């Protein structure tokens, strides 16, 4: 493991903006819990994006203002949110019909690990002491064509999240389209990890040395 400089890399907001820039006008988008939630606030002006939350709302708006929370209007992370004009409520089977049926254009998820081939692990550490919980993650990766992952490149303990093979239990196989991390934006193209953009001060070599996954340069 190479030593990394803590100050390097993009901030969460910069990553969120990069993700948001890649979401086209008119897209239907589902945002995972955690980091991906930041994407909503970063959609470029002039684009209209409709957010889906799998607990039964199309047209999710901003988080609820303090004092205006409605315990019956929450997102998938159970945070209090709002609904935009033109929103629609529906039940869970209809909501996952949207997901499984391929109607959501883009889903942005967090990750524990992403493999060379775009396998994603983000639901279980495999630790028997942890309570297993899967939520909607497997449905999302099975149903949505374009899966963006938004994540820190390293775990808190310094392990790379991009790996040759996932050691954690999989959420889905060959499902990730692009990885937005604090150190680089990496495409999964035909089973290869292609580095598209590097954060300031990050070199391709540094990145390659940080993971056992084979990386390709986008300009190669």
């Amino acid at each position, binding site marked *: 493991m190479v030593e990394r400089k803590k100050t390097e890399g993009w901030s969460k907001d910069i990553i969120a903006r990069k993700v948001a820039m890649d979401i086209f006008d008119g897209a239907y988008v589902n945002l995972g819990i955690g980091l991906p939630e930041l994407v909503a606030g970063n959609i470029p002006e002039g684009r209209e994006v409709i957010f889906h939350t799998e607990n039964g709302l199309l047209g999710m708006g901003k988080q609820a203002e303090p004092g205006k929370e409605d315990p019956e209007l929450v997102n998938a992370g159970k945070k209090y949110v709002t609904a935009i004009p033109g929103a629609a409520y529906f039940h869970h089977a209809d909501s996952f*019909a949207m997901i499984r049926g391929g*109607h959501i254009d883009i889903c942005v998820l967090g990750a524990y690990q992403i493999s060379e081939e775009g396998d994603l692990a983000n639901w279980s550490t495999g630790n028997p002491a942890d309570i297993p919980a899967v939520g909607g993650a497997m449905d999302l990766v099975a149903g949505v064509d374009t899966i963006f992952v938004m994540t820190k490149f390293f775990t808190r303990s310094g392990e790379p999240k991009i790996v040759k093979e996932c050691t954690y239990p999989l959420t889905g196989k060959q499902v990730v389209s692009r990885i937005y991390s604090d150190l680089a934006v990496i495409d999964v193209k035909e089973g290869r990890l292609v580095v598209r953009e590097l954060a300031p001060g990050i070199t391709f070599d540094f990145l390659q040395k940080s993971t056992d996954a084979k990386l390709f340069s986008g300009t190669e």
Partner: protein
Amino acid sequence: MINKVVNTVHEAVAGIFDGATVMISGFGEAGSPVELIHALIDHGAKDLTVVSNNAGSGHVGLAALIENRQVRKIICSFPRTAISVVFPELYRKGEIELELVPQGTLAERIRAAGAGIPAFYTPTSVNTPLEKGKEKRMFNGREYVLENAIYADFTLVKCAAADRYGNLIYNKTARNFGPVMCMAAKNSIVQAKKVVEVGDIDPECVVTPGIFVKRVVEVKDPADESKLVEQERRYPW
């Protein structure tokens, strides 16, 4: 900005290609998108597979589309009606193919396509001639047949009101196949009696959320199919 509203029925049906599978909503005339079907006749795409509960009446709407020889095959539950003349004639001559599907199985196969379910088991048609060729299987001591999803390239639907996001509400029993057909097609094309502002439809009452809709066109005074049939109208007129 999202704006699914187009100006004419002809714009609405643009892009329907020869050989496409086209779902058409309606239970008899209730919910039948007559103006969109007529636009499809003008458009001329042929060799279509049509999925619809019935096979049309008189010489307008779906019957006219069939009469115009644009339909190679129809998948439906009830092609026979008192005033259905076009389909029976072509069918007897062997000039149109029919896949007869029980009505509930038809609705569920369409929903399945929209919901990403490739196949499911159902008790309907077991021990009848319509089970022919279907895989059978026991669950909890009862026999079921395997049914596959029906996917479509386009859906033509009539509804009561729509907004620019494509959120739809319907009128009474004209709802019928509209919502599931919008789910099952890559491109759902909707004629609405009224296009309303975003926010005008109560989010609790949206029947088809906009995500299932591609294009919307306002048709303020849609024809009553039964009146056209009564008047012995023929399309193209």
